[in-house]
């Protein structure tokens, strides 16, 4: 197997293929990542997202706009508004801003009526009022899908795209450890994933002290506290990523059920839950299982 490592959208990536990726394939991968970052990054001031936040009103809709907002709509419905694509200002207010200031100035809720404020038609993305879009709940999953598709066009055989927490596996089975959120040298289980995507989310990294981290409840602007780590397996990384986020909130398990997505999550009190029929092996003490 051949492994290509690089850093993109603020995280280390690895692409594992049976044969080395040709230069053309690498260029195509770099191209799609650059395009996605240019379109959706709230950390760069030349993105349409930044322009909308400054009050541009309307911008040419980047590719993926329809799929991303349709998925946010399902997430928002399922979680009663806890997941919201206009949560950018809430993240900034807690200090997770473009300059990584991590200077928290208090929780700010995201506009609950986001659907009335966001319009996507005629190839344009329009905001009724300036707001900061953040597609963090599903954006990386979407990008993993895009990258995996490009890689599959260029090389035959098995492919693993590992964007550090979000993985797409094409072909062979991969045994994946579920990292213990309180101890990165340990795992709370293993999951053998075949021809599917596994996305993980946890509050232990991208945290900057005093209970502040990157998973917010958009209704309050406060970091979540009941759940500390989630893992979901779905056909696409975008859906796995979406469920990995939704599982931090009431309603996530129901949406996973509707989408046929399997999952595991760890609560902050140390308990671990999993979906009916879940294929993961969780290292539990037999005495503690109920029922």
């Amino acid at each position, binding site marked *: 197997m051949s492994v290509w490592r690089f850093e993109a959208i603020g995280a280390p990536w690895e692409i594992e293929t049976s044969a080395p990726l040709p230069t053309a394939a690498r260029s195509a991968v770099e191209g799609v990542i650059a395009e996605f970052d240019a379109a959706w990054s709230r950390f760069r001031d030349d993105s349409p997202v930044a322009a909308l936040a400054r009050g541009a009103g309307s911008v040419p809709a980047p590719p993926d706009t329809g799929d991303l907002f349709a998925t946010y709509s399902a997430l928002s419905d399922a979680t009663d508004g806890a997941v919201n694509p206009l949560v950018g200002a809430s993240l900034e207010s807690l200090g997770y801003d473009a300059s990584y200031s991590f200077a928290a100035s208090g929780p700010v809720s995201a506009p609950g009526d986001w659907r009335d404020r966001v319009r996507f038609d005629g190839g344009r993305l329009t905001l009724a009022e300036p707001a900061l879009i953040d597609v963090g709940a599903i954006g990386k999953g979407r990008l993993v899908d895009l990258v995996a598709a490009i890689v599959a066009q260029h090389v035959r055989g098995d492919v693993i795209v590992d964007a550090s927490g979000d993985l797409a596996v094409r072909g062979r089975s991969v045994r994946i450890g579920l990292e213990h959120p309180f101890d990165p040298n340990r795992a709370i289980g293993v999951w053998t994933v075949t021809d599917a995507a596994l996305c993980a989310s946890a509050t232990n990294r991208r945290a900057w002290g005093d209970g502040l981290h990157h998973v917010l409840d958009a209704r309050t602007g406060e970091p979540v506290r009941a759940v500390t780590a989630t893992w979901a397996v779905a056909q696409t990384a975008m859906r796995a990523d979406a469920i990995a986020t939704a599982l931090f909130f009431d309603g996530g398990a129901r949406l*996973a059920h509707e989408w046929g997505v399997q999952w595991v999550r760890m609560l902050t009190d140390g308990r671990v839950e999993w979906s*009916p*029929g879940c294929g993961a092996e969780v290292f539990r003490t037999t005495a503690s299982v109920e029922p």
Partner: protein
Amino acid sequence: MTRAPHRSVVRLGALVGVAGALGLTACAPESSAGAAGGEEFADGTYSAEGSYSTPETVETILVTVTLADGVIADVEVEGSPQRPESEQYQGQFIGGIADEVVGKPIDDLMVSRVAGSSLTSGGFNQAIERIRVEASEAAG
């Protein structure tokens, strides 16, 4: 004769059904002034609130036990989960719950990949380090 509530919060576990069952055995004896097993209980009606967490909500239930001649004569559990999904937590959407898991060393697991939170890269880590330094200087 009514005494309520004895304990403002009794941790009852994760599930409504289980909470009801556990709550009674655990809560009734303890509620009599922390008495050990075997002690007599005064007749009367005792109520205690229990709470359990769901993601992002804490549900409470009120358990009322009536004791007559030292035995439980009646039990009432008033559960009003704040969100309808909570009632369905224990079957349709959740396959199982473990109160405790064992973290096994990743080196022993023969896994080829590990998934947790995204590893953070340069900018984020530098900023965190900067804050650490500033915070320690401010403290000093």
